[in-house]
């Protein structure tokens, strides 16, 4: 008996690049009792501590109100929802929505987590969602949305233009994985 094999293709992908880097700078200025101002300028460009990075990650994924009170959860989830569209305009810092959305209302991520890779020293937020298509389209843009459950509101977070637009027919799905990376300077 022959089994029908599902074919898996790997299309052209972009070479991976280093992403966001987080660092800190400390400046100092002394004012003497006589009113003289001495600017010492930049005094330190240092690493963010583990504690600082963990605080950043908690802010990205929601956090308990108090480390000793696990009953109060601040319900804020960054990049929890996904939408896609057919727009091809270049990505812009001023984007606040998709150019030509196919889905306007975000689909919740099926997998949503954040973690610290102790080997690479990179913190990652990962959000995976599968979007469905009920008509043929050439999917060329993708957006992720953050959700604040306390206000039942989606906030636009980021728009990406696909390097390789994906042609879909009715009934097809696309699984998008969005990764936000923070690494220490």
């Amino acid at each position: 008996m022959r089994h029908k094999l599902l074919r898996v293709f790997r299309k052209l992908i972009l070479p991976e690049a280093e992403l966001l880097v987080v660092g800190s700078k400390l400046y100092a200025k002394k004012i003497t009792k006589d009113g003289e101002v001495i600017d010492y300028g930049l005094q330190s460009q240092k690493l963010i501590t583990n504690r600082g990075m963990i605080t950043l990650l908690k802010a990205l994924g929601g956090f308990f109100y108090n480390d000793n009170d696990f009953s109060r959860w601040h319900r804020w989830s960054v990049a929890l929802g996904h939408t896609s569209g057919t727009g091809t305009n270049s990505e812009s810092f001023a984007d606040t929505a998709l150019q030509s959305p196919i889905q306007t209302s975000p689909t919740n991520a099926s997998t949503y987590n954040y973690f610290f890779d102790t080997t690479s020293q990179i913190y990652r937020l990962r959000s995976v969602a599968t979007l469905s298509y009920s008509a043929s389209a050439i999917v060329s843009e993708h957006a992720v949305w953050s959700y604040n459950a306390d206000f039942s509101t989606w906030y636009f977070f980021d728009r990406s233009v696909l390097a390789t637009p994906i042609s879909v027919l009715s009934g097809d799905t696309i699984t998008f994985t969005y990764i936000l990376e923070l690494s220490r300077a």
Partner: protein
Amino acid sequence: MQYVFVIEDSKVKDAYEFHPEVGFMLRKEEWEGVAVEEIEDRLNTQFESVSKIRELGNEIVYEVE
């Protein structure tokens, strides 16, 4: 401003007031359960201008003023 309706079984499952220029989408729970054929009439009672801009899949989107 736009109104986005997610439809399931000919009724509104989710509704959002969408401000695309600022990337802000507020859930409007009072629309949940409303029949599809009632949507436009209800919008007309709340806004001066109502026009359907998209209907694709399980979503209907109106531009309202």
